[in-house]
């Protein structure tokens, strides 16, 4: 088998790409894409640890399931917000999302 | 006419390795395939279009020749059956549709109108005198006003003969 560390490194990389995206992207949908990457990186870790060091009740996988559900809910709401703001302000750039004024 | 020469141009011969026998055989195969699967464009202009529809209908059943797949998008069809009168307002559209068809493409001019303007040749200020006047090279003319469905089938057979007898241009 592959050493666990390698999988974790992959997940770290994806995570950092996500962080990079979150920090630099101005486009709101891009931003959400990056968030998805971060969540997925977490999921990779969960599954990998579950496989290598997991308990018998499959906690890691169940947690990953929950994360997927949460991610789904988050992107549903996040995207509809983006669309709503876009329709209001004609912009998809986070800089323009001045939620206080909105 | 020129269309046919273009299709199996020199490039094919260059690209397909093998002896001339093999080449001839593939060419036959290609021609056979091209001629056996002529998908027409769903495109009716005038009275002749009704006869074209009838040709697709149960009594004549153009599908027997493998040409029953009427495609609405010019991107997916092989033969354009110009069925009816071409008028000045229409001619650009027809040309555009023809241009948008992918090679190898063929044209059947159905009905005297599409051939020469036919019954509207004289005295008409708005009828274009045939498909060739629009700049569309016609492969087979199917005369009649309108041509009988059998005649259109005959035209398709003629087109198949024509395709089958094309030889690739030697480089």
């Amino acid at each position, binding site marked *: 088998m592959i050493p666990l560390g390698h999988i974790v490194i992959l997940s770290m990389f994806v995570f950092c790409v996500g962080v990079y995206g979150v920090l630099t992207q101005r486009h709101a949908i891009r931003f959400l894409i990056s968030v998805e990457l971060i969540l997925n990186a977490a999921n990779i870790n969960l599954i990998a640890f579950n496989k290598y060091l997991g308990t018998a009740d499959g906690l890691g996988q169940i947690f990953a399931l929950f994360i997927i559900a949460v991610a789904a809910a988050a992107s549903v709401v996040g995207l509809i917000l983006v669309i709503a703001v876009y329709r209001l302000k004609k912009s998809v750039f986070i800089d323009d999302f001045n939620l206080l004024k909105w | 006419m020129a269309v046919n020469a273009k299709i199996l141009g020199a490039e094919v011969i260059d690209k397909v390795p093998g002896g001339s026998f093999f080449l001839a055989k593939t060419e036959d195969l290609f021609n056979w395939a091209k001629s056996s699967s002529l998908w027409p464009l769903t495109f009716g202009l005038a009275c002749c279009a009704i006869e074209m529809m009838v040709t697709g209908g149960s009594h004549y059943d153009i599908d027997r020749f493998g040409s029953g797949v009427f495609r609405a998008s010019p991107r997916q069809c092989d033969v354009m059956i110009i069925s009816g009168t071409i008028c*000045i*307002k229409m001619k650009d559209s027809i040309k555009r549709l023809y241009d948008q068809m992918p090679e190898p493409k063929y044209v059947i001019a159905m009905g005297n109108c599409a051939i020469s303007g036919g019954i509207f040749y*004289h*005295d*008409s*200020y*708005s009828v274009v005198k045939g498909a060739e006047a629009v700049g569309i090279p016609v492969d087979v003319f199917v005369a009649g006003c309108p041509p009988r469905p059998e005649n259109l089938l005959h035209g398709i057979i003629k087109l198949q003969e024509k395709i089958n007898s094309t030889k690739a241009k030697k480089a």
Partner: protein
Amino acid sequence: MDITAIIQSLVEKFPGVIIDQSADRVTLTKEAVLPVFEFLKNGPAACVSLHGVTAVDRKETVEVVYHVHSFQHRVMLTVKVILPNDNLNVPSLTSLWGAADWMEREVFDLFGVRFEGHPDMRRILNPENWTGHPLRKDFQMDGVVPRPVK
């Protein structure tokens, strides 16, 4: 109410505008077009349907011909307006009939008669960048091959 009665009522209602009349046809002056049709449509004649608008080029003049039709009395009345060649303008009937829209556009396209008050006086059958009105007797165009045999 038959056709003579309708024409009679017209003559009575609009004295002086009927230039000419025959069994099923009246000729109007241009100015009277709108009121007369209004009366024909909403009055006792009940000619609710504008059946057709066309024109005839009489070389010096152009006749605009209207056919109106009454379901109630089962009559079809022909109304003509004669326009001089140098002033091809006539009030549009689009305010009375939706049908007038395209029909008038067609007459404009083919004869060059302008209908005043028409919301969309464009060519309808011929390309918009055309000049000339093909059904005029003096229409000339390159590429028209006359029939050789007379």
